[in-house]
């Protein structure tokens, strides 16, 4: 049985109520561009541009809220809150 779990596969296998406002951001003053966030984000929501991490524009649609990016950020540049109540990822088979 072929299971690939490409980004497109994962997107098909998740349910998200898109958040009505931003709740995750990178403080570029603190970011060192180390790329830790990009390594651990399984939805490829981070990229390093000009020595700084930047978050994909559509992260509100595709984030699991696992917080791995925030946990591995050494300079504490990632501000991880949560989507407003009732919004964000929903585990249908939770």
């Amino acid at each position, binding site marked *: *049985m072929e*299971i*690939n*779990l490409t980004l497109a*596969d*994962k997107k098909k*296998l*998740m*349910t998200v*109520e898109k958040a009505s406002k931003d709740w995750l951001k990178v403080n570029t003053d603190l970011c060192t561009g180390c790329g*830790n966030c990009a*390594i*651990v*984000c*399984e*939805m490829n929501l981070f990229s390093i541009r000009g020595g700084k991490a930047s978050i994909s524009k559509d992260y509100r649609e595709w984030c*699991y*809220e*696992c*917080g*791995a990016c*925030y*946990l*591995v950020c050494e300079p*504490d540049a990632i501000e*991880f*809150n*949560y*989507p*407003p*109540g*009732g919004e*964000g*990822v*929903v*585990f*249908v*088979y*939770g």
Partner: protein
Amino acid sequence: MQKYDIVVVGGGPGGTLAAKTAAEKGMKVLVIERGREIGDKIVSGAIVLPKMFRDFPFTRTMNLPRARIPRTGYFGFFKPPPSLEVAYYSIVSMDPDSQEYPTQCVYMKEFVGFLADAAKEAGAEFRMATLVSDVLRKNGKITGVITDKGDEIQSDIVIAADGVLSLIARKAGLRKKWDPWGVVNIASLTFSAPEDKIDEEGIGGGVYSIMGLGANYHCVFKDGFHIGGFGFPACTLGRRVQARRGVTAEYLKFLEPPLIQAMLKRLEAKPVEFSMHPLTWFDEMPKEIYTDGLMLVGDAAGLPEPFLASGIYEAMYSGRLAAEVAAEAVEKGDTSKGFLKKYYDVLEVSPVGQQFVGGKQIRAMFDLVLTHPDGRKLVDLMRSISMFLFWGWAGTIAPASVTLPLMITTLLDKVPVLAKVAGLYLPVAAPSFSEPLSRLTNELVAGVMRSAMTKGGV
């Protein structure tokens, strides 16, 4: 201004138990949950063990529509990639009918729904789809919470059951965040499968975990199953960023071995949901879990235990205990850090805290399996301990309750930690069942402990 005796942040297993307990003690309790429905933010794949039924009698009557009692246990270890050969594999048939309260695989949504109903029945209020964004403070003491809708809710005590990333712990200044070297990020797939196919699997259906260097686990429901894993070997986020590799590729490797492929095919399995969730897997019980007016419980307190990293029982136990201490604090009018230390002190000597004693060496066992000359025996031992945790002490497992201490004695010279494992895990499981064999085992375990002491192993 709204005012409660106790505000509980988070409606998972820790929060619901805290709410139920406090409400039963006559407290005015509010649970604030950010999901629209209970379980929206909890990943599936939960296995509830006999010790939960032992210590939470009200759960003995639960009858969840899609839960399954496993009848077959698989225990295996893979060699690290690229080989991925099965280094060790065994099947254990179980007769759950011989168990008073057998292990169950449950969807968290159903299970926590049951716990929340019990809390509501006891009189706790629930406010859904509401995020707590900050704590209220007066003279440095936490006196309530602020929601994302701008509501200020006062309470004598706040119990934070808001999960591994606990916003409350951060806002209260108890910690910035967990050390990534102590946190794993679990990838998991939930599959649907026809109920009758699962019934046919093995003897009467049911699969349990393939543990191992990859710490991969299976959990089988009535109408589907869940495979979770976090990489080779027991790969924490700290190890991941050091090695610069993500988890998905390794997770997929778990699905490649022929025995897994054959199982997926037999079951006509269809992936229905993928998820990621972080889990603390500490070798010591965290200390900063209370302050003036606040206690952290469950994953928010970093309580998943160091052997199987299971955290549901721990959340329930700590939630109940925090609520008991909170009710006493409210009645005495003393919600200071000094009084709430009681929560920490009692938790430390409870089954939850005791699991952490020797945690460093317990964690190290996972790394020893493939390198230690007695690795194979260690696997046998870990398998036996898991069997006890999963299936208690009765039925077909009973003979192992005699051989287990003997196995430990044989290995003691080389792996002294085993004395601690024996002393800590086995008595925790033992009181589930008042059988002569469990008493006998306890005596044997005590013998192992004595022998370890004379050899200076402990």
